[in-house]
């Protein structure tokens, strides 16, 4: 098990991801500059989620890791989300 073949990600992939991230960043800056009311927050958060997805899968190698690490990451995000939602059961309905 010492010498499992480690996946070497080519530089190109990283570059592509960076470009995608930059595009998303600029897009989110542009879109939030428009007056969209409540949608602004949603738009900004959607772009942030897309970006974090890219960072997690490519930069942080989740795509090439064992499945259980991915499950753990998903689990942690899910727990956090649930905590926020439950907290808002209080604030939203106050």
């Amino acid at each position, binding site marked *: 098990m*010492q010498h499992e073949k480690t996946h070497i990600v080519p530089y190109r992939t990283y570059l592509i991801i960076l470009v995608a991230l930059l595009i998303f960043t600029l897009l989110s800056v542009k879109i939030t500059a428009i007056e969209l009311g409540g949608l602004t927050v949603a738009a900004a958060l959607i772009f942030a989620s897309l970006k974090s997805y890219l960072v997690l899968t490519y930069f942080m190698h989740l795509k090439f890791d064992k499945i259980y690490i991915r499950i753990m990451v998903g689990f942690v995000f899910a727990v956090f989300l649930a905590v926020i939602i439950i907290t808002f059961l209080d604030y939203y309905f106050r």
Partner: protein
Amino acid sequence: MQASSHIPHDVSYLDYKGKHKGLLAWILSTDHKRIALLYMFSMMTLFLVGVLLGLAMKLELIAPGKTIMGAQDYNAVFTVHGVIMIFMIVVPGLPAVFGNFLLPIMIGAKDVAFPKLNLFSWYVYIAGAILVIISVLFGDGSPDTGWTFYAPYSFKTGTNMLPAIFGAFVLGFSSILTGLNFIVTIHRLRAPGMSWTKMPLFPWTIYGTAWIQLLATPVVGITLVLVSLERIFGIGVFDPALGGDPILYQHLFWIYSHPAVYIMILPAMGAISEVIPTFSQKHIFGYKAIVASTLAIAFVGYFVWGHHMFTSGMSGTAQYTFSILTFLVAIPSAIKVFNWISTMYKGSISLETPFYWAASFIFVFMIGGLSGLVLGALATDVYVHDTAFVVAHFHFIVFGGVGFAFFAAIHYWFPKMFGRMYDTTWANVGWIVFFIGFLALYSPMFYLGLQGMPRRYYDYLEQFHAANILSTLGSWVMTFGLAIVLINLFRSAKSGPIAGANPWNGKTLEWTVPSPPPVENFEEIPVYGEKDGPYEY
């Protein structure tokens, strides 16, 4: 991975002479077993402080009016008592002591995954403890907020809060590191052939606990940091005068502190799940159900924090959601109790001290847990919230649960840890005295709570007097029992009769190595075959 080593296998970890001598050989050792004992002795010391504070409170409450201390001192005493007991004793208690000592052995490993980190956690723990002690002894008076540090009082009081808060933060950090270490250990270092479903139950509970430690502790960490910043700069996050919401503080505090109560109880349940099969000489009943309930408690326990805030002014929706979730988290505990009792069915039970402790654990745990149901229901909690009833609930379950499990565990694994046997007669006498004292000490508090006596009350009205006297008397009896138990253990560790490798005929891996275990635990890493398992009698 398991390269051959240069350490002889006939030297126990206690006798082993490494690079360092004397005390240094301990406080610089990365051996998980020595670290476990380091934790144990530092906890014992702090624990005695906590006990003394508890006794002082009971003495104060023996009669209305001032008995031995003033209100300010009383407030400081229950705060420090709570902080010590929660953050320094029961949260790290079983994982740091028995988890450290036994987890690697029970899964067939030579040590934890990161031995140096393990030692480092102990230092962090000590640093946190010292900070709390500083806050007690220096500055303008000991902290007096209760262990919950509720805003806005915690940044209004003039007492020396900062070191205490920071101490709790540091202790949390130690807890996180320990949890991290254990998860990696369990994932990476299980003996070949030991699949997840063949892992003994104690490691399973450590695993569940470790996840809670990891995911819940940071939340209280940041909350405490914010309270400190509030005190120093007045940033306003919890200060109503600046627009902050004190109830949000409670949310964040309990997001950690409720899961923390399951950090405490899960390893205790794990220890009980080891003791009962061994002394019944029988396979544990419903292994998979117990594992599943462990994970369910760890998971659902994350979402019920609001039951501490039923009167704080949350929205009604939040209130009944939390109530229902609270009830759901009680189910897995019930499943465990049923399985433990069923394990005894048609067993061959030998009444040794650890079994007495385990059986009484089940009893007091049921009382504590069932009283939790009273607290979980809305109408009844509104009535008993912040009364002596809550104090009774959590002493029964924290101290009854964790404390009794701790004593079950220490008697059970004592021969393994020290290679000697304790004196059975004294151990049993200590148990019964302790048990009686315990019931006398805390049962009256249920009654007081139902009568409406608020908690954290330095003084009380005449109608609460009688029950308080009984309770105080109980505290003396129990301490007497505790003294017998501890003295017996100390004496036996030095001069008890030599114990064999497997005095109880246990089937988990720790009983296959000599007592006390050699430095690297196993001469050869055990391999689990198809038919092997932790409870195959």
